[in-house]
């Protein structure tokens, strides 16, 4: 019975996701290149108005260095602002609970986290942050960090599609359009739908109720729906409340859950089709989407199987530790895979209490580099790095100059692509090694045995790939983790953005060579298979040793009855 309904929900989800991606992919294409679209009647005037009052010349184009400088200075400002308002929280308005100022290293970690689209949370929202910080600080970062990811993607696509150019677009125009046409309309619709399901949206202070049995219960409230909508749509993931979308006010019903989990993947999925339109090559979009879907569905099947088969360990029908009744096992699995393939990181069940193989699926999803759907923009530009690598490797195998849509892929591109792919991996393994070999790192662990290693590995994996979910048993609010994860997030974000823009800046200068019969096709099944192989070999094998002494050995030990 359950299995039947689980299957129906799975199929329904896949159908809605695919058709939604195709539809919004077309809409975003028109909006992002400045063509007239469905939303123009409402949004064109505000857009032009913004350009006018801020003296942005829509026709002006930047080279990659200027584009990058814009991103860096904008991100730096964001960081400073979010840091400052946390440190001064007590003196600022909209703080009905009189929450005190945030401690420096926690504030540093949180500012970096939201600026880099990670939304790793070493704090609990309801007890640490005022409405002011959540709204003026974090909600804004939810929008702009996603918009920056999307802008970088647009710059890279221009690098691929423009013939012998110098410039890769105007950052301020890209940012404005991303927020106005892509993120804002969907957020408004989603926020209102979520409120209808029971997500709170109020500026009142927390309510104290007297329970039936006569004790007092403090119920936290806040302007949650507006932040949760963009938290899901912008692949941010930072919860308004501590336990994120497991909290009933953040995710009250199965329908709100369906909407939220769909929102995680919708824009990254749609952007694949936007990319296809920009290349005028639908087939290539379907190939990328197919590879992503394959990895996504495999993750769900493995994780679901693992949850079901491990319930016998406790002689129970289902594993419900850390899960909510209104979602059940399948929706928790679906969410955990969606949130880790996309660099979202919100949770509706506690990942630490899921079976060890489910934990491994989550880890692998992130360790591939957040390219299966991935973050807004960042998922696809990460995937394009892997595509360039695949084109290069297969070009070498057949002895031809590697080309991608007519652009020659040479040493310069491959050097940067490798840097972009390797930086997060190096950060994860190096920082995890520090964590597991120092007392200050080990003292934060909750679960002993191999799961303890997984907790630390998960923290740095999540940070370096800008995901933000956690094996939350780890006490991450220590100076050691606040600082180290802070740097992991910075390296993981800009260690990929810089290579991507460098590649864009170099590719845009190249001529487009016409396709010949000898050109290796990037649209057929063979290329899809090659791409998947490169992703698995490069991405997953890097981490196989770490995984084998974490979740894999934990799984084997549980099966033979060992506990810690």
């Amino acid at each position, binding site marked *: 019975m359950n299995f039947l*309904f689980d299957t129906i929900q799975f199929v329904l989800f896949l159908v809605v996701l695919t058709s939604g991606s195709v539809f919004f992919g077309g809409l975003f294409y028109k909006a992002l290149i400045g063509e007239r679209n469905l939303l123009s009647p409402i949004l064109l005037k505000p857009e032009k108005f913004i350009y006018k009052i801020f003296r942005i010349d829509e026709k002006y184009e930047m080279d990659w260095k200027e584009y990058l400088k814009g991103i860096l200075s904008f991100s730096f400002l964001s960081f400073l*602002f979010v840091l400052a308002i946390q440190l001064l929280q007590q003196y600022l308005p909209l703080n009905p609970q009189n929450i005190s100022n945030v401690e420096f290293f926690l504030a540093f970690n949180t500012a970096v986290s939201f600026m880099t689209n990670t939304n790793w949370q070493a704090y609990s929202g309801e007890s640490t942050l005022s409405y002011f910080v959540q709204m003026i600080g974090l909600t804004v970062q939810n929008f702009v960090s996603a918009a920056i990811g999307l802008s970088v993607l647009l710059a890279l696509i221009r690098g691929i599609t423009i013939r012998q150019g110098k410039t890769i677009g105007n950052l301020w125009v890209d940012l404005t359009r991303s927020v106005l046409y892509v993120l804002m309309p969907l957020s408004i619709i989603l926020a209102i739908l979520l409120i209808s399901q029971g997500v709170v949206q109020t500026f009142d202070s927390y309510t104290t109720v*007297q329970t039936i049995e006569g004790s007092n219960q403090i119920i*936290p409230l806040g302007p949650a729906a*507006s932040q949760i909508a963009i938290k899901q749509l912008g692949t941010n993931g930072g919860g308004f409340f501590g336990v994120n979308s497991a909290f009933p006010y953040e995710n009250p019903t199965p*329908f709100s859950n369906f909407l939220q989990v769909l929102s995680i993947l919708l824009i990254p999925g749609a952007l694949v089709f936007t990319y296809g339109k920009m290349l005028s090559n639908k087939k290539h979009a379907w190939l990328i989407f197919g590879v992503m879907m394959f990895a996504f569905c495999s993750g769900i099947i493995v994780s679901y199987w693992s949850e079901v088969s491990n319930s016998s360990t406790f002689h129970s029908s289902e594993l419900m530790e850390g899960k909510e009744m209104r979602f059940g096992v399948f929706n928790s699995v679906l969410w955990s895979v969606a949130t880790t393939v996309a660099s979202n990181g919100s949770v509706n069940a506690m990942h630490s*209490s899921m079976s060890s193989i489910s934990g491994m699926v989550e880890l692998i999803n992130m360790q591939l580099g957040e390219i299966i759907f991935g973050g807004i923009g960042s998922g696809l530009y990460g995937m394009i790095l892997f595509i360039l690598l695949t084109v290069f490797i297969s070009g070498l195998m057949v002895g031809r100059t590697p080309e991608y849509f007519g652009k020659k892929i040479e040493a310069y591109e491959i050097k940067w692509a490798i840097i972009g792919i390797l930086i997060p991996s190096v950060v994860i393994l190096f920082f995890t090694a520090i964590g597991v070999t120092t007392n200050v790192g080990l003292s934060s662990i909750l679960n002993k045995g191999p799961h303890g290693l997984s907790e630390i590995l998960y923290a740095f994996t999540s940070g370096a790939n800008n995901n933000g979910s956690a094996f939350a048993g780890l006490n991450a609010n220590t100076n050691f983790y606040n600082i180290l994860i802070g740097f992991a997030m910075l390296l993981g974000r800009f260690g990929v953005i810089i290579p991507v823009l460098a590649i864009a800046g170099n590719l845009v200068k190249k001529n487009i060579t016409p396709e010949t019969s000898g050109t290796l096709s990037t649209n057929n099944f063979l290329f899809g298979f090659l791409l998947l192989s490169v992703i698995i070999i490069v991405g997953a094998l890097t981490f196989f040793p770490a995984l084998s002494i974490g979740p894999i050995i934990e799984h084997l030990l549980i099966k033979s009855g060992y506990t810690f």
Partner: protein
Amino acid sequence: MKKIFIQSLKMFFLMTLLTGIIYPLFITVFGQLLFSYQANGSMILKDEKLIGSKLIGQNFADSIYFHPRPSVITYNPMPSGASNLALSNATLHEQVNDRKKIFKEENYLVDTVLIPSEIIFSSGSGVDPHISKEAAILQIPRIIKSRLLNSEESKKVFSLITSQTESRQFGILGGEVVNVLELNIKLDELIK
């Protein structure tokens, strides 16, 4: 570089205004107008007094009430939290065994009964408002005994559970669940 910095300052100001102030205020106004009950926390009033929220579970320890799921924060969501215990953690195994034993003893159940999994595992939010229908039905013997109910009243309690069982949303999504707080409020109304 100075030009870029000034431009990003302007842009940052614009985005803060647009997404940090206008957007949340817009959502608040519309949310409050369209769905005021939900936007303010789906609160339950009884005799003009707030007694809880439909969405936030409450702790019930008294034997005359249906009991909710185990919670590591005993239903005090400041802040919310879960156990985060791994399946390989011995503490989790002990807790599960204890909860099974206690649930059976409390509800006068025979040893062979399979206890619903939500009763032996703690929730993710710590305030999960729901349990399964089976978990509610298994608690009937205790309710009957501690409230000294006759057979007619007992039947009413049984049908109360059935009427309080929420089906899958739109017939497809989620699972069949019972809201413990609402069930207990109804129970109090049913049997004065």
